[in-house]
């Protein structure tokens, strides 16, 4: 049996002290992590949300406009050929990949908005061949713990800024 698993009295005391200190600090710093990982905040919310996805594209006048999408869209590549893109090609998470209908915001609204922002940035960074989309936009309708719903907008990092 590896000796590390049978520490002496002094070592087991230090191990226990370090273990409890780490666990306590992870619990006490839960608020600093939007998704509260490692902090055992069970059933923290009953919130729901609906994600509506859109693309910010350039207009003829030089500005941009928002085009809604059901998660799949066609865009031109640099050679002018049409290519097809899908949100779910990169986003496999069951909550974030559900568009247009309410889903339970597991681990809370803050957790899901944090993840969604990361997902928008990630997908925007991986749209090789899409020269039209300037940014991805998510309009999120939120029902926090049964309250009246409200909407918030998240936008990916700009492409071709």
């Amino acid at each position, binding site marked *: 049996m590896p000796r590390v698993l049978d520490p002496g009295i002094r070592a087991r005391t230090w191990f226990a002290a370090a273990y409890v200190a780490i666990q306590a600090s992870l619990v006490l710093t839960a608020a600093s992590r939007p998704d509260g990982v490692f902090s055992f*905040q069970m059933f923290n919310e009953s919130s729901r949300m609906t994600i509506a996805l859109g693309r910010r594209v350039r207009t003829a006048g030089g500005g941009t406009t928002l085009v809604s999408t059901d998660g799949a869209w066609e865009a031109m590549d640099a050679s002018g050929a049409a290519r097809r893109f899908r949100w779910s090609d990169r986003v496999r998470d069951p909550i974030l990949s559900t568009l247009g209908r309410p889903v339970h915001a597991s681990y809370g609204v803050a957790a899901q908005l944090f993840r969604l922002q990361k997902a928008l940035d990630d997908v925007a960074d991986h749209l090789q061949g899409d020269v039209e989309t300037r940014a991805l936009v998510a309009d999120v309708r939120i029902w926090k713990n049964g309250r009246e719903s409200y909407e918030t907008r998240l936008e990916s990092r700009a492409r071709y800024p």
Partner: protein
Amino acid sequence: MTSLFRRWQTEEDDAYVVSLVRTISGVLLLLSGLRELGPLRSDAHFADVFHIPLLPEALVAGRAVFTVLTLAQLALAVLVVVGRWARPALLGTAIIGLYLLLCDRLAYHNNRYALLLFALLLAFTPCDRAFVVGRAATSAKARRGPLWAARLAQMQMGIIYVASGGSKLLDADWREGRVIGDRLVRATSMAIAKGVPAELMEVLAQPALASALAKLAILTELFLAAGLFLPRTRAFALWWGVMFHLTIEVTSQVELFTWLSLAIYALFAVPALRERAVVYDPDSRRGTFVARVVRRLDWLARFDIRADAGAAGGRAFVIVERDGTRAAGILGAARMARALPLLFPLFLPLRVLARAFSSRADDARTAAC
């Protein structure tokens, strides 16, 4: 306090119960590992699509490494179940699991994290002294070992309750019952559609009831965090905790957390075995039935089972406690249920029933006087 600390540092006792907890944890690790096989069948590996690593991206497991580690976890879980190289296997599976959690926080779930923490702590217990496949049962002396890490696992359970109950207590929506209320309201239409009377669901969805349930849930978690550690409240805390976790199991999806919690509850049992006795009358059909039930269900080896009509004193069976006190009838059944995991939910109802009968008998005796 100092003597308590010294006792924690040096305590050695029978590792039978902690070995049983190891076996159950091994099964849970195996089930958890089998779930991880799902992503292996997926066309896209998690690291090749959107994920949120807590580690630097360069350290995130690619498909090949992930496959090897997942299969290694399964193999280690088998070792944990059978008890061979169980402690290094527990340590290995905990390290691999924690590493994979750090690779993608989208895959994080409190119950999976808890399972890995308990695996880590069990690795430091003498949990390989019993329930080892292919090895004959060892003597009580050979099973003895230091239980400091088992106490740390108990403390981890307390930390979970404090963290969960404390975060709810600090959240106004939770305190006021909004979170539970919303869950109930949303469950209402589903329940009515399944045939539950609408009137009943209306009562359950009342804001006042939701508020009361929320406070009860918070108090329960905070009580368990302390009650499990105090000898006077431990039995009630364990019973209340079992009810609490079983309620969560039937109303929510918590993967393996219910069974993990109940397995860890076994660590709160006194390590020493067979300190209680069931004495039964071998000529009584009820007595032999009780003895058979206890033999089958005494998973924590609490009872010494003796056939002795004389010692049973004309009763079908008598439960003899650690301190020598004896109980028969409903009170005996309550004390039996208290020590048998499968019958444990009956312990408190039987105890209340026994008390009610006893006070009624006292009333009758007083009236006769």
